[in-house]
């Protein structure tokens, strides 16, 4: 790798770490957006120079979606608000939860997921976004409930080869799937349990609190989901789901990351339970499966051995595209760990940050 950057969005700012030695060491002294939450970050490498995005919550002054074309030296906020509900919709963007550039064959398309539950699409590389009306007008929407973090659309998964095929994930509404570019959407939750509902209602059509969905771009029909109690796999792009949690110390958690090169390899960061959001046994461990969830193994080489009581949130674990792959995660204790060998060994990259909300990494030069 030449220059790699690691964006770490925290409760009170954005750290931009840089590495020029194939991810061995990182400079971590660039901290921006002081005292502002950075719930979402993205690195768009489809153009030169790359563009980095940040979804910033300015506290009293509302949300902000901004971007930089010089790797964070300066940031652009368009004169026109880049993202907002249309007049008369009676809704206002409360938080930008996800910024997702489309695949390389749609080089100007960027998606954004917001609170309240809505998807926005940009066709000008993120300068302006329009509401995806098909999802906003979905007849299920009045029944979608907020999750513990809010009524968030937190995950956007474009199909790598079909521009009309897109999945979104919302808490607590579940997974929705469009095959016609967003005009119509179908729930894709069959087999996922809503453990918080009465026993005879635990497999609804929608209303699940799915925390994260991931897939390998070379195998887009196979999805993995971390649910609010339950880890699942789908072999038909969300048509049905089966549990793959056997071997994990808990079926609760948020973060789930697919390996960039191996379709059967997946990383999970389990938490004890929804009422005990700590690593199981207070041991800081990432779990890896190399057979699509049939078996899991803990990874802890290089991680602290002392009891650890901080969680990893849904967007705070990520993989790079290196070979061997780098895996990174940030904790609510404000520490960032990285592995240069697919999770076999870990090292501390940054510490003493505010709690980590979002992490993204890419080679940019």
């Amino acid at each position, binding site marked *: 790798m030449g220059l790699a950057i690691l964006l770490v969005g925290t409760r009170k700012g954005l750290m931009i770490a840089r590495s020029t030695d194939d991810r061995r060491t990182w400079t971590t002294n660039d901290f921006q957006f002081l005292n502002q*939450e950075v719930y979402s970050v993205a690195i768009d490498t489809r153009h030169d120079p790359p563009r980095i995005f940040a979804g910033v919550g300015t*506290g*009293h002054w509302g949300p902000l979606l901004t971007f930089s074309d010089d790797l964070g030296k300066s940031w652009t906020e368009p004169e026109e*608000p880049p993202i907002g509900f249309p007049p008369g919709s009676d809704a206002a963007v409360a938080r930008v939860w996800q910024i997702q550039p489309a695949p390389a064959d749609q080089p100007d398309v960027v998606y954004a997921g917001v609170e309240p539950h809505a998807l926005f699409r940009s066709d000008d590389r993120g300068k302006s976004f329009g509401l995806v009306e098909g999802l906003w007008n979905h007849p299920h929407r009045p029944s979608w409930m907020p999750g513990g973090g809010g009524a968030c659309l937190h995950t956007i998964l474009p199909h790598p080869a079909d521009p009309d095929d897109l999945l979104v994930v919302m808490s607590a509404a579940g997974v929705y799937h469009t095959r016609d570019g967003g005009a119509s959407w179908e729930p894709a939750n069959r087999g996922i349990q809503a453990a918080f509902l009465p026993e005879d209602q635990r497999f609804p059509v929608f209303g699940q609190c799915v925390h994260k969905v991931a897939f390998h771009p070379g195998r887009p029909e196979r999805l993995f989901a971390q649910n609010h109690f339950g880890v699942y796999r789908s072999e038909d792009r969300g048509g049905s789901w089966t549990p793959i949690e056997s071997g994990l110390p808990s079926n609760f958690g948020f973060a789930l990351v697919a390996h960039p090169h191996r379709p059967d390899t997946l990383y999970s960061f389990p938490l004890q339970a929804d009422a005990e959001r700590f690593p199981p046994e207070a041991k800081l461990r990432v779990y890896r499966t190399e057979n699509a969830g049939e078996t899991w193994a803990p990874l802890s080489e290089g991680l602290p051995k002392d009891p650890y009581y901080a969680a990893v949130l849904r967007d705070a674990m990520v993989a790079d595209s290196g070979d061997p792959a780098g895996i990174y995660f940030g904790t609510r204790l404000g520490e960032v760990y990285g592995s240069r060998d697919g999770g076999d060994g870990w090292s501390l990259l940054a510490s003493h940050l505010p709690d980590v909300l979002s992490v993204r990494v890419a080679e940019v030069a």
Partner: protein
Amino acid sequence: MTSRLLLPATLRRYAGGQAEVEIRGGRLGTALDDLCERLPQLERRLRDEQGRLRPHVLIFVDGVSVRGGSPMDTPLPEGAEVFVAPAVSGGSCG
């Protein structure tokens, strides 16, 4: 009708570093519409995309809070002081 919009330190960067900005309009809503024409990035910090005062923004016109009722209909007398403050309720946690 011209009023003086007085800004807290955190918003002055959106007004070229100025502590106050002249706004024109007979009511708070029309005055902020005028502000949006000249300093849109400042205006959007005060109101959401539906033109509503953001939940944790306080505005006082000549010392009287505009909260409650219809804040945007608040009359602005000539020379009014429109004071903007962040509510103590709305900061980030910690």
